[in-house]
């Protein structure tokens, strides 16, 4: 696996945990333990996203803060590279 894919996999793991907690909170909005777990995951996710975007380009359009429009660069997520 490439360094890019290893990092992307780490990002997806934490992002998935956050998503799953959020869905749970939609039907249990008063569950403070789960809200605290989201904060923990976000703490771990933030530096990974920063590292990824610095090395491989933006994950979201509005995160592109260079003067070059790197959003268009390959690979796109469905290409399996």
């Amino acid at each position, binding site marked *: 696996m490439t360094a890019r894919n290893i990092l992307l996999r780490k990002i997806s793991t934490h992002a998935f945990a956050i*998503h799953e907690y959020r*869905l749970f909170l*939609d039907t249990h909005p008063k569950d403070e333990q789960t809200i605290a777990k989201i904060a923990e995951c976000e703490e771990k996710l933030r530096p990974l996203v920063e590292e990824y975007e610095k090395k491989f380009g933006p*994950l979201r359009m509005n995160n592109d803060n260079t003067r070059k429009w790197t959003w268009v660069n390959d690979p796109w997520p469905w290409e399996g590279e």
Partner: protein
Amino acid sequence: MFVYEKRLQYPVKIKQTNPKLAQIIITQYGGPDGELGASLRYLSQRFSMPVPELKATLNDIGVEELGHLEMIGAIVYQLTKNLTEEQIKAAGFDSYFVDHTTGVYPSSAAGVPFTASYIQVKGDPITDLHEDMAAEQKARTTYDNILRYCDDPDVIDPIRFLREREIVHYQRFGESLRILTDKLDSKNFYAFNPSFDKKCFAKEKNNRK
């Protein structure tokens, strides 16, 4: 509003092409219990949902389904990459190929194009939530059937992930239904349509006082 994130919800990396399998899996792209229908169903039903938790659940699951649609598209795309004309013929993929080449078109495994008649928006939250729970189970069965035809671990892995999501969504919709009925008169949940007849929540307010 939607913001695109340039990654899949779960990775799809398929090394071995398999057009026969692509033709089966495409049913979760545009078939009767597929991800396109799921997404449209929830994102449309949310407008007439009367309770905050239910609006949130339909909204957020509907958005996740768009991510699943993308994953299925990626699987079909990667399973049909760099095919030769001989491989296409041998796999029986020629009937799809003649209309769409190797583009990803929303249709069922039998080639029936996607139609909105796969979904319903009844405007009654009890009815809509029952449809949603059934839809998750139908999609789960479809993934179980797809897994019968998979022997490539690169395909099995993301399909299993998607199958598990159906079960989690089923759970969330079940909780949504309970949240709703807890607010209604247990002597007759069906006396009113909770989206249209707002007075059905009056009793709950009186109870709180």
